[in-house]
């Protein structure tokens, strides 16, 4: 059977949906967009683009288990950095399908995410690379790597939200 081709508009809709779930703090629903072996990574800002988290210090290098624990934690009132919850707005743009084969494609996009808490708005700018797979239940994310276009986490100080 011929695999159904990915189209940019389909991918864009999917990424906008991901962004909306994050902005609405529907994190368990957001997590359900990820495969059971998914990865989520945010490299430190001084690392080369292809750096591996196995021998470099990242900000975040979650496997599927830790990602689910991240969500579980963020839903608790004891995740003090995010409770009371910050307001966020995830903007996604410049979406391109880099390559695809069969039921899997690699997508690059640009993002700007605003986080407002206690009267301060911080901005996270960067590019994302998603690996997206098509399954019986629709599109799922097998990996997401957010590379910040920043020299450091200053003044943001933390990536306590999901980018």
């Amino acid at each position, binding site marked *: 059977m011929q695999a159904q081709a990915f189209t940019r508009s389909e991918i864009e809709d999917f990424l906008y949906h991901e962004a909306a779930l994050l902005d609405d703090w529907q994190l368990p629903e957001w997590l359900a967009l990820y495969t059971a072996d998914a990865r989520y990574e*945010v*490299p*430190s*800002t*001084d*690392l080369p683009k292809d*750096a591996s*988290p*196995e*021998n*470099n*210090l*990242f*900000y*975040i*290098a979650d496997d599927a*288990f*830790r990602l689910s*624990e*991240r969500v*579980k*934690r963020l839903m*608790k009132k*004891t*995740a*003090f*950095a*995010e409770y009371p919850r910050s307001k966020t707005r995830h903007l996604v743009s410049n979406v391109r399908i880099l390559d695809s084969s069969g039921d899997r494609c690699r997508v690059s996009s640009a993002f700007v995410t605003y986080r407002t808490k*206690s009267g*301060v708005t911080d901005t996270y700018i960067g590019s994302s690379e998603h690996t997206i797979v098509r399954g019986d239940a629709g599109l799922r994310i097998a990996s997401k790597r957010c590379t910040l276009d920043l*020299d*450091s*986490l*200053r*003044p*943001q*100080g*933390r*990536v*306590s939200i999901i980018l």
Partner: protein
Amino acid sequence: MKDISKVIKLHVDNTQNLFKVPRASFVSTDVFDAERDAIFNHCWLYLGHASELTKPGQFVTRTVAGRNLIFNRDVDGQVNAFMNTCPHRGATVCRDRAGTAKNFQCFYHGWVFGSDGTLKSQPGKESYCEGFNDHGGANLVRAPRLEEYRGFYFIAFDQDIVDLATYLGNAREYIDLVADQSKAGMGIVGGTQEYSIRANWKLLVENSIDGYHASTTHASYLDYLKGTAGSLAAVGLVGVGRDLGNGHAVIEYTGPWGRPIGQWIPAWGEQGKVDIERIVGGLTQRFGEERAQRMALKNRNLLIFPNLIINDIMAITVRTFYPLAPNQLHVNAWALAPADESEWSRKSRLENFLEFLGPGGFATPDDVEALQQCQTGYENMREAGWNDISKGMGKAQPAMDDEIQMRAFWIEWNARIEQANNAR
């Protein structure tokens, strides 16, 4: 300098076992100005680690206490710390973060310096007098002092400061406990966590060596360990706090997390068990049972006065920071690891690190929040003016969740600021 004696006065009552710190110390711009000189111009400050400069010509650029520096190993193998400013007209000479260079060329007028800082050439040399640089005044300016202890390089802006080993004093024992963890040496892992906190730098000093806040601030991290199959070792948060003198302090304790240097957890499986037994066996051979067990099983949060933290916990972090304003600080943090550890160990170590530490971890963001909320709380200081760090006062041996470490810091801080204030 303004008279700040009233603002900085500690309230210490040894009969009542009370130790209080005026909140103005975290807020006042006069105190901030005073400590920039009395503390940061007259203490040894961490610059970098020997493992960052393994090759001739290798360099990193770095900011320490507001100064931009080049930290390099010159082509002859000597380690240097240069002020990263052209002796000609002041432009930043090296604008790369890191790399390898035989020479540094200032792009403004093209002066070229060797990796030892010596002026090698300048365009239009014929227009300068004979012997223009005979006294070295056109070479890169060195940081006034640069010394090393066990791979940790420190600089000082005070030419007359005591030597580093004397300054470190009793803290050397604790640096040794980290430096000795590998025969092959310890190394900084690639990747720097650089972040800022909207709070006073002394709040991060306190927080970094605070055993008292773990079970509350980090409840969600401890939940995570408890909820993760095999992630807990059957040991509690138990240990001691120590004042090491000269403002240095440490807490040393057992903790329930895995330590890739010696505390196995079931989640690491049989391979992990074999690896850790081999590591601990090696330590025992080199240092004997008692010291090996201490290195393997005990956690240590170490403060080197004023602004270096070496925390040997579920991973090792080296963290230094500097204030930009009373309510703003910049942090640089690295992971330190045995240079020869196995792929498995390195991976487990970095996973451990990221679970707890750093701006994306399950714990540090909550610390950042706590520090910022303290800073916000100090806006009430006219009516609510004092911090209390009395916990464990009067005990023969304070525990890891007492506050002797903070008192050690504040006594040294206060003595230095007071001396500067009296001499003004």
